[in-house]
């Protein structure tokens, strides 16, 4: 078990809290730069960001199952009652 550390003035826990926001580009420029600095010096946080990024990518690529045809017919019929 590695210890959490302070890199670029940020504790790993703070970086963890902001990771999704960072990934989605929703942090202020200042904040994003500080997080990037921490990431550059902290392999554990960098790895977590890479992995979360991969998880988001794969969920975005889940196939969009179409509505089963029998459900579609049932739906339209029942809405016309």
């Amino acid at each position, binding site marked *: 078990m590695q210890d959490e550390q302070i890199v670029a003035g940020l504790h790993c826990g703070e970086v963890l809290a902001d990771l999704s926001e960072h990934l989605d580009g929703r942090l202020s420029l200042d904040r994003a730069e500080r997080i990037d600095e921490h990431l550059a010096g902290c392999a554990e946080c960098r790895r977590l960001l890479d992995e979360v990024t*991969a*998880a988001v990518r794969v*969920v*975005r690529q889940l196939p969009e199952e179409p509505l089963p045809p029998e459900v579609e017919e049932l*739906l339209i019929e029942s*809405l016309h009652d």
Partner: protein
Amino acid sequence: MIADDARVSDETLIGRIAAGDPSAFDRLVRRHQAAVYRFARAAAPVDGDAVEILRETFLAARRAASRHRDETSARPWLLSLARQTIDRRHPGSRETDLTSLRELARAAGWQSGEDGAVDESGPAVEAAFAALPPEDREILTLCDREYLTVDEAARVTGLPDAAVRTRLHRARLRLLARLKEGAGAG
């Protein structure tokens, strides 16, 4: 089958539905039924409920058409009606997540010093997604599959923006933990 004309906006269709035009209603249904169904399957706490949620959602949409106020897509509005339908059918089923962010991150391998592979194969991702709690599937569906903004997802779920953001972050960490678990077991 009525061919959909994307040039007719949702807003126009909803206006016609409010005026009692049944063909406009059919078009709105066909345009959004797959997304509402996907959301219902993801967010409902029990399996097998999605078709009824879908039906009730569109019935609610027809009733509420005259009260709809929106300049853009009807998608978030329809999904919020689906959310209300789920709440009505399963009152009190929404859970409050008390797991700390650190616990979730550690379950996903953070600070473990180990490189666990993320299983990115289609079936593994589908299984990992299906095994998540409905709250996680809901927020991932809204934000990462339907690409709703945080604002829109907040409107759908009735949660404050900040809660949407933390919920999304937690859901992503839990999904990651599942994907790595799957890779380890396989």
